């Protein structure tokens, strides 16, 4: 058939949508993705849940950006919004801009999204079994991704799928092609998911907790695979995780999210060796490290994240923050740039704020106890740093001494 000169159905559709929606300029030609002041809410019977409250970030070409934070901080919602995967309604993009390689995602309707999903941007999920179809062979499912985007015809799909299975280092790809997902182990299923995601060589890969369900030895295999594929294909990657060890291993840059906002962002070295936000300190200290002594208590962030039905009008972390000052409970902190790559929103970085020092190890201390501006928590006598144990006890363990 005369396939050569005529555009295929898929190409025509893609071309049509490209003319319509792919006209935005990225601010920086280095970037592949730019997100500007993105706000996403969910309409529920109980009210509006403000899951993402003004998030701005970018991803450079073939870079790994890690988004870290506790569960419920909006990291998954942010990433799903990039692909418009969350059902709308109840989800709603309140405002903001998402530009991926010139495509204006926010304005795009569902049929247009379908032409770029998997093609331009694709996703690896946490639990591989839930995202694979148990009634179809693995080869069919990978082939489907290729056929939908017209990257393969019925004739050559087999060879292409085998190529991709080889790319993700699946042993015995010919046999695996004909097997069903239940015949695969967890690690192998995750390889299949990665194969599907990379089938159409997207420019951005979103990996949402790709290794949380896997064992450490398998995790190491999958992480090194993702890194290797990045080298080979130049795909940029957004890695969503709560495991800081994985972040240290993988990421070029890190964005720390809390209550629907990015509170600190920087290169991986800046976040790990020179963090500025008290929440980042807490996150880093709350994990036992190999060099942790047993006699040291683990640092823990007391309390729980704020209710996103009615997020506070001031700093969302203020109620859990040991250093909270008066201003922290009055206004949102401004974004301070510490270096071209390192930004942090915290009032402590304001020139008028008292100098606060983060001590490594298990305890924090206030350098100067500025009684005037330090409120509530910090002005209690316990906060002076000496009676750390007692203060922790208030939220952690109410000791039987009383």
């Amino acid at each position, binding site marked *: 058939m005369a396939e050569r000169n005529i555009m295929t159905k898929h190409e025509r559709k893609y071309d049509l949508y490209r003319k319509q929606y792919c006209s935005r300029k990225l601010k920086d030609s280095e970037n592949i993705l730019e997100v500007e002041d993105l706000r996403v809410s969910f309409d529920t019977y109980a009210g509006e849940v403000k899951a993402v409250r003004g998030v701005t970030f970018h991803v450079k070409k073939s870079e790994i950006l890690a988004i870290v934070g506790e569960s419920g901080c909006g990291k998954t919602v942010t990433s799903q919004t990039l692909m418009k995967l969350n059902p709308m309604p109840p989800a709603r993009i309140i405002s903001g801009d998402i530009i991926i390689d010139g495509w204006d995602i926010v304005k795009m309707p569902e049929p247009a999204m379908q032409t770029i999903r998997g093609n331009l941007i694709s996703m690896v999920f946490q639990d591989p079994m839930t995202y694979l179809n148990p009634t179809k062979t693995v080869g069919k499912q990978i082939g489907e991704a290729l056929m939908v985007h017209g990257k393969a015809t019925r004739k050559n799909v087999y060879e292409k799928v085998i190529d991709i299975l080889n790319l993700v280092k699946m042993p015995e790809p010919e046999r695996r092609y004909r097997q069903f997902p239940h015949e695969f182990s967890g690690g192998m299923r995750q390889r299949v998911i990665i194969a599907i995601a990379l089938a159409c060589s997207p420019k951005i890969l979103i990996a949402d907790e790709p290794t949380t369900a896997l064992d450490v030895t398998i995790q190491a295999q999958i992480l090194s695979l993702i890194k290797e594929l990045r080298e080979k294909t130049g795909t940029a990657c957004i890695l969503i995780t709560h495991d800081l060890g994985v972040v240290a291993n993988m990421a070029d840059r890190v964005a720390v999210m809390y209550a629907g906002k990015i509170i600190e962002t920087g290169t991986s070295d800046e976040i790990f060796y020179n963090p500025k936000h008290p929440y980042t300190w807490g996150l880093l200290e709350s994990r036992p490290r190999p060099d942790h002594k047993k006699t040291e208590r683990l*640092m823990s962030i007391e309390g729980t994240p704020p209710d996103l039905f009615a997020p506070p009008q001031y700093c969302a972390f203020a109620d859990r923050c040991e250093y909270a000052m008066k201003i922290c409970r009055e206004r949102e902190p401004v974004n301070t740039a510490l270096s071209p790559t390192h930004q942090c929103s915290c009032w402590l970085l304001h020139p008028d704020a008292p100098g606060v020092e983060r001590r490594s190890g298990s305890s924090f201390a206030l350098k100067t106890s500025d009684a005037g501006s330090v409120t509530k928590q910090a002005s209690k006598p316990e906060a002076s740093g000496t009676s750390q144990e007692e203060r922790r006890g208030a939220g952690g363990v109410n000791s039987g001494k009383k």
Partner: protein
Amino acid sequence: MERNNIENNNNNLVEVINLKKYFSVGKKKLKAVDDVSLSIKRGETLGLVGESGCGKSTLGRTIVRIYEPDGGKIFYDGKDITRIKTRKEHLDFCKKAQIIFQDPYASLDPYMTVGQIISEGFEIHNMYKENGARKEKVHELLRLVGLNDEHSNRFPHEFSGGQRQRISIARALAINPEFIVCDEPISALDVSIQSQIINLMNELKEKMRLAYLFISHDLNAVRYVSDRIAVMYLGSLMEVAESDTLYNQPRHPYTQALMSAVPVPDPKKEREKERILLEGDVPSPIDVPPGCPFSTRCPYAEAICLKEKPELRDLGDGHHIACHMAG
């Protein structure tokens, strides 16, 4: 195969000898725990690590007799609890050994209030019979784990994951046990909550002189809480050692690979680190390879490893290892 080199001495609170637990899968046997021997001293925390499906939870559950063992002996305080016949003897054992489960959402009865959940043990063991005393004790336990008195009238669904795990801990502590099996107590919790629970468990251990069997796949957490660590693979123990020794000088090839696979939250160390990547997956526990269970993935495997199963042998300093090659 009886092993005589491990004898039941009185220092050990729990002594497991050649324990076996098999499950039937069709006509085949799934060897979840295959010939495991270990011991836990009073006031000691033994960490038990391994990949999922290696039998660590089964081992923990068999030790507290949720499962009936298929072979071997378990001595608790010098008494063979596998031979328990009467209900009274069983209750006596239950009073000393308790378990905390992984999933705080599934292990609390949604129809019972927190107070009822915690005081259920009092009823079974006939403790604190006067009404007031029981209530007082429940409140004391709630305060001990960092909750308030008024929480006793609430139901489990009103609590967050971390709080529920605290309730599970209070329930386990209610009847003053000496030994608690902690079956992945922190895996289902958020990072910042995990550290709260670890701190709590450490504190209670000091205060009540508890012995823990701490089962987890989070190697950093296990190292932090444990005195000694046992590494399990496909139903068998691979290596047992003091926790620092195990982390700094792992001798077994599997432990070495496991340790190198743990990501450390430090980018510089991560960049420099040499990872031992294991090929392939854990074999199915239904068809455990003959010889050393690890032989299919071991980079050093030789002919003898495929034929003969290595015994756990002592390298001195309480460092035990089951490997033909390392020494």
